[in-house]
């Protein structure tokens, strides 16, 4: 009876408040898209840089690793006195959390490119930029993509915390549900985030498989 009631109210919430949760989900997605773009661009660039400039490798990986281990709520707590609340600090916090897998996989991906392919490219007259763009990055792509997948999926689940720094998103539904003892709303929010995260991970996983197949030797 109790259980039925819970599922029922969840369903009711999903059906009656569809406008609200869909727009909230969209704003969630937008945050994730922006955070992921930052993470991908910065992460790949930094990953490439540390394959070329040895001295900064330790620092870059160390700092990114530190960001990765600090709980996101602690990061946000740090930002509120510095930058106030809103989208900007939320994006920065998410980017800091997600950048390690992209840097690490870019670095590892480029390093695992077989010397024979690099030599073939250089031997045919590729300059440094051409070597990177036409040989190293494409051959590292499956590994880089695996890092991107990890970062994006992590961003998607982490973005639920954005509510604590005033950036809204799906966290709003969960938090409001909690505060108003609206179990249907709470469960609906949780389900949407959980299902969307799993779906996203599966889709990206499928793409990753395709890429790996395409690059098979």
């Amino acid at each position, binding site marked *: 009876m109790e259980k039925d009631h819970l599922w029922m109210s969840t369903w009711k919430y999903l059906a009656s408040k569809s406008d609200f949760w869909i727009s909230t989900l969209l704003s969630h997605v937008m945050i994730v898209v922006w955070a992921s773009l930052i993470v991908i661009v910065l992460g790949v660039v930094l990953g490439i840089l540390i394959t070329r400039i040895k001295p900064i490798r330790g620092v870059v990986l160390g700092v990114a690793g530190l960001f990765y281990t600090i709980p996101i709520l602690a990061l946000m707590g740090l930002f509120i006195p510095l930058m106030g609340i809103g989208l900007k600090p939320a994006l920065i916090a998410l980017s800091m959390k997600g950048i390690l897998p992209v840097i690490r996989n870019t670095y590892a991906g480029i390093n695992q490119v077989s010397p024979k392919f690099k030599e073939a490219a250089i031997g045919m*007259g590729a300059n440094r930029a051409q070597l990177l763009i*036409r040989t190293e990055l494409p051959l590292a792509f499956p590994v880089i993509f695996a890092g991107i997948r990890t970062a994006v999926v992590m961003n998607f689940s982490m973005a639920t915390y954005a509510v604590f720094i005033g950036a809204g998103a799906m966290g709003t539904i969960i938090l409001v549900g909690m505060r108003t003892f609206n179990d249907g709303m709470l469960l609906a929010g949780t389900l949407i985030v959980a299902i969307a995260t799993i779906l996203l991970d599966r889709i990206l996983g499928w793409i990753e498989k395709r890429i790996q197949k395409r690059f098979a030797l």
Partner: protein
Amino acid sequence: MENTVIDVEFQNVSKYYGKEKVVDEVNFRINRGEIFVLIGPSGCGKTTTLKMINQLVPHSSGQIFVRGKNVTELDPVELRRSIGYVIQHIGLLPHLTIRDNVNFVLQLQRVPQKKQRERANELIKMIGLPDSYLDRYPHEISGGEQQRVGVARALAADPEILLMDEPFGAVDPLTREQLQNELLRLQKTIKKTMVFVTHDMQEAFKVGNRIGIMRRGQLVTMGTAMDIVNAKDDFVRAFIGREAVFSALDTIPVFQAIIRDCPVIHEGDAIDPADPRFKDWENVFVINQNGHCLGYVSLTDFKAHEKVTTEKLREITSPCLPSDSLKKAIGEMLWGKRAWLPVVTKEGNFEGIVSFQSCVSILALDD
């Protein structure tokens, strides 16, 4: 050789990896249009020597000239673009189609798309694969086909010089022979200067105009197939081995072993078996005024000074051309159970004979 141009020259070139000297004071000159083979045991420095030509590996000392220019004064990227390179283990880029692999060099040089398309079609035809292969990925074609594509890729920008590092290394002997034949056929039309690394002596004899044998970083000996089989060096002799001698015979032309002083008489002349010219000979060849050979007569058929009649004239069978290989001539002798063969030019002029004895003796010229 008519006005030889030297395309690659090494002057006392050495290469150190740390303290280890992997290439040791190497000297050679490679002529334009020649296939120069570098051969030697694994680890003797063949690949290193090859890579110093396009400066994939910088040399430690000595001087290297490519088409007359000191390589240290050239932009390495430009240098490499002017030289085709077939790397050991093929190295086709797995993320690119055969078309993009073949066009890789052209793409690096920003050659217009239309030209690239035409060139890819030309090249795939040149290496004898169907057009449809252009859209496949390297892992979708066989090892032998990949090696062909590796050669096509190196030829894409039509470089004058081609470096080939064991280009036919990873295929079965039959395919390998086929690829060698294709290369030689191709070379007739493209006439590139090639530096060809292998560790197969038969391959070396087959494709090489000249061969350099390396050992522990040193170029021990260098020369034509004939020079190589005549080498005195114990290492070289052991390295060539007995089987490879047959391949060497394949590259040595019959004219090197012709016995030209065999006795000849003209049509209508009489034969005196006691003639001192015929001492040590069993047969006498009969030629007409034009130098054409009509046949030969056996001296045992003549008791005294006697005219040559048509009954006594024996027909010349299975003559060989001066340009035929010794292998072919020896094969013919074994097949026909004969100790010698007449050598006759395409025009029918009698040149002399070739015998087992003469073949053996040229392989020991300087004994």
